């Protein structure tokens, strides 16, 4: 059976490349990773004419000079040297009609690859909105390749594109016209002089042009350092006939000249120079002083909205899970199975779902601000400040996402071009106050900090303390980034180079798809781990059972039945006995033993074994802490009842009668909780995104140690 043809979709970031791909393939796509690099591989299948065609969505890249992981993978995929991917039969270049020079620069590289190339002239709507009018037929004649104008996010032009791809696949590749013939000659000569198996001629050309680039590195890795001299000679020879300060400058100059020439021949109406005609909104946002005010206002509004909108939804969800759980417990026969289903599985699922509203609302707002172009301005504003901490302006969006959930936030650091700032950002993100920290903050603040109001009740101490904890997280993140840069990532010059997108209304469909993706990352990557952690913690807290304890409480229940006071009082007494039994069993369980075992380590923070056990249970996933506390403190059936838990914590005593939960201890616990990396999913995603388990382990050890130290100091100073 002949293999299906393969079309590779190439394009710069923000050209709507993935939207074109999605429109072509629909839902028939597979995502994975290219081996060894954190670049997502997305493949799908499309119907083109009467045939089925495989399509691969290459990572977004401005150029085929392999400087980022993305562009190396893109070039490897095109050359047929990417692991697990065959050489494509045709290329589809997605061009941004509103920013065509840059796309045509990439086209001039693409047409030298020996494959038939077609151009999808996307974002027609944005271009027309900015007064750019391009004649597609004339452009096609200029560049010698078929061009289809389209607006992919509205589905315009897709059918035409299918027809064009069908014709393209039946054509042979045109003889490439080279922008850098000198380099070709030098590469041929170089190939005769050295033996570099696995390096295509195009890879050798890139090695010659791109000084210190990925392909130079590979060439030297294959042929050994002595190839350096041969390479330098080839470079010198090519530069001599090309002229100019460097080959890469010469290449960019020639290709951009070509792009300008093509554009001139196809442009009906051009845009005014960017920045001349700015709307009032753009002027306000870009103003140095007013812009900062707008920025603070927008950020304040985002967090206010998250709190105001998420709270009722979260209450509704947790209420639903409790009601159903309590009903199930009353129906199911009592025993290990009922407890596993309700206390383990069901409350585990509930622990995940309850955070969904907050995460979805924050991500929706972040994605909206990102897609309408505002967050790029925020990145511009924040670069200076973030640079002080060893990060860059591009760290801003991932850091902001960290307030929802660190897992998708760490994945989104891929947009940061420079390696060192990216790693610093990855280390800072877990300290942003994610949604799972909030319930513990709320419980401890409302339980142990006396209420106080200032300025006629406008400001209350509880709110102030919560804000303080958020700021503490931000400060901790900044400090982590700084320390990481000092300790592990010294030297190097960072760069920060970013396109400034125009302001535009986001497409709701595209926004919805992205939001769905983020929510899926949370549910799949984090949620499954949280639910599994809940199950494991349940098992540790349930087993082993003590017969003696069971016996003792069965006797108490029997005694109660004999007494027979009023029905209400008996019911209450029974509930109390049941809760005490659970608490006693927990003390006897593995979890209780673990708590007692580690208690000495947390004595300096003022924790007894109950607190230690609860916090230890939170290390796989901090979401479970409240639930575990409910069991440890014998809350019984109404485990989710915050007021009930608060009262139990207040009643908790050391053997000598002193209360465990003092203001100082609660503050220390809050600080510990703010800094500790209690989330296995985050540790795993750090490992995956840095491609190194050392980074993941280092981050965990460092943050846990730091949390202990900060919690201990807080407790000892506040005592």
């Amino acid at each position: 059976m002949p293999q299906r043809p393969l079309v590779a979709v190439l394009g710069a970031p923000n050209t709507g490349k993935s939207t074109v791909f999605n429109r072509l393939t629909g839902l028939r796509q597979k995502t994975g990773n290219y081996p060894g690099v954190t670049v997502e591989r997305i493949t799908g299948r499309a119907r083109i004419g009467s045939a089925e065609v495989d399509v691969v969505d290459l990572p977004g890249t401005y150029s085929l000079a392999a400087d980022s992981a993305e562009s190396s993978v893109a070039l490897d995929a095109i050359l047929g040297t990417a692991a697990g991917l065959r050489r494509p039969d045709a290329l589809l270049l997605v061009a941004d009609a509103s920013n065509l020079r840059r796309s045509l620069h990439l086209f001039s590289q693409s047409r030298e690859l020996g494959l038939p190339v077609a151009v999808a002239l996307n974002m027609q709507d944005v271009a027309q909105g900015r007064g750019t009018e391009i004649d597609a037929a004339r452009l096609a004649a200029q560049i010698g390749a078929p061009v289809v104008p389209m607006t992919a996010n509205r589905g315009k032009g897709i059918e035409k594109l299918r027809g064009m791809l069908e014709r393209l696949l039946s054509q042979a590749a045109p003889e490439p016209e080279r922008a850098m013939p000198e380099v070709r000659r030098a590469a041929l000569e170089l190939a005769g002089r050295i033996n570099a198996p696995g390096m295509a001629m195009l890879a050798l050309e890139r090695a010659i042009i791109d000084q210190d680039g990925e392909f130079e590195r590979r060439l030297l890795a294959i042929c050994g350092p002595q190839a350096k001299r041969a390479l330098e000679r080839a470079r010198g020879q090519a530069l001599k006939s090309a002229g100019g300060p460097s080959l890469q400058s010469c290449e960019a100059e020639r290709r951009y000249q070509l792009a300008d020439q093509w554009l001139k021949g196809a442009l009906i109406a051009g845009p005014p120079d960017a920045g001349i005609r700015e709307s009032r909104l753009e002027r306000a946002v870009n103003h140095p002083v007013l812009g900062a005010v707008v920025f603070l206002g927008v950020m304040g509004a985002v967090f206010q909205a998250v709190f105001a909108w998420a709270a009722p939804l979260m209450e509704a969800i947790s209420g639903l899970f409790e009601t159903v759980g309590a009903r199930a417990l009353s129906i199911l026969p009592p025993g290990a199975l009922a407890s596993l289903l309700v206390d383990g599985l069901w409350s585990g699922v509930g622990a995940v779902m309850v955070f969904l509203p907050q995460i979805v609302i924050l991500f929706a707002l972040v994605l909206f601000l990102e897609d309408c172009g505002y967050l790029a301005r925020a990145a511009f504003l924040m670069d200076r400040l973030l640079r002080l901490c060893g990060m860059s302006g591009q760290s801003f969006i991932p850091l902001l996402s960290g307030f929802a959930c660190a897992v998708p936030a760490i994945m989104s650091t891929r947009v940061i071009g420079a390696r060192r700032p990216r790693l610093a950002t990855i280390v800072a993100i877990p300290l942003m106050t994610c949604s799972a920290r909030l319930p513990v903050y709320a419980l401890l603040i409302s339980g142990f900090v006396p209420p106080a109001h200032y300025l006629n009740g406008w400001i209350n101490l509880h709110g102030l303390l919560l804000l303080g904890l958020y700021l503490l997280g931000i400060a901790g993140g900044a400090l982590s980034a700084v320390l990481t840069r000092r300790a592990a990532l010294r030297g190097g010059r960072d760069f920060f180079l970013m396109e400034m997108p125009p302001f535009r209304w986001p497409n709701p469909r595209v926004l919805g798809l992205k939001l769905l993706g983020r929510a899926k990352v949370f549910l799949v990557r984090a949620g499954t781990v949280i639910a599994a952690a809940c199950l494991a913690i349940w098992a540790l807290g349930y087993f082993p059972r003590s017969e003696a304890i069971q016996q003792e409480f069965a006797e108490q229940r029997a005694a109660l039945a004999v007494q027979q006071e009023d029905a209400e009082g008996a019911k209450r007494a029974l509930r109390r006995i049941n809760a005490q039994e659970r608490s006693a069993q927990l003390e006897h369980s593995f979890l209780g033993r673990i708590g007692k075992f580690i208690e000495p380590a947390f004595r300096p923070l003022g924790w007894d074994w109950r607190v230690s056990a609860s916090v230890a249970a939170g290390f796989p996933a901090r979401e479970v802490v409240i639930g575990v506390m409910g069991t440890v403190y014998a809350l019984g059936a109404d485990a989710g009842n915050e007021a009930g838990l608060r009262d139990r914590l207040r009643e908790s005593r050391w053997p000598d009668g002193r209360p465990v939960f003092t203001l100082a201890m609660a503050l220390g616990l809050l600080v510990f909780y703010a800094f500790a990396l209690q989330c296995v999913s985050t540790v795993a995603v750090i490992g995956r995104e840095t491609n190194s388990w050392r980074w993941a382990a280092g981050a965990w050890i460092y943050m846990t140690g730091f949390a202990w130290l900060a919690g201990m100091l807080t407790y000892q100073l506040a005592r």
Partner: protein
Amino acid sequence: MREIGLDELPVGSSSTIRSILGQGRQARELLTLGLVPGVAVRVLRRAFGGDPLEVSAGGHPLCLRREQSRQVRVTAVCAAS
């Protein structure tokens, strides 16, 4: 004509890129995004404290740090036009 760094160009004024200093990746990044000899460039604004800069190169806005903008050599202009 005198040549200056893009960082010395006042906000609002335009000039033409003459060359990109430096070798290797740092220079390549600038070239790839269209900061290429012969292209018209204009400083749109600077962030608080003068860094980073937002510029328009060939009609498309970009932002970059002051340190990087020093590598972009442009023709000196008299004053903001």
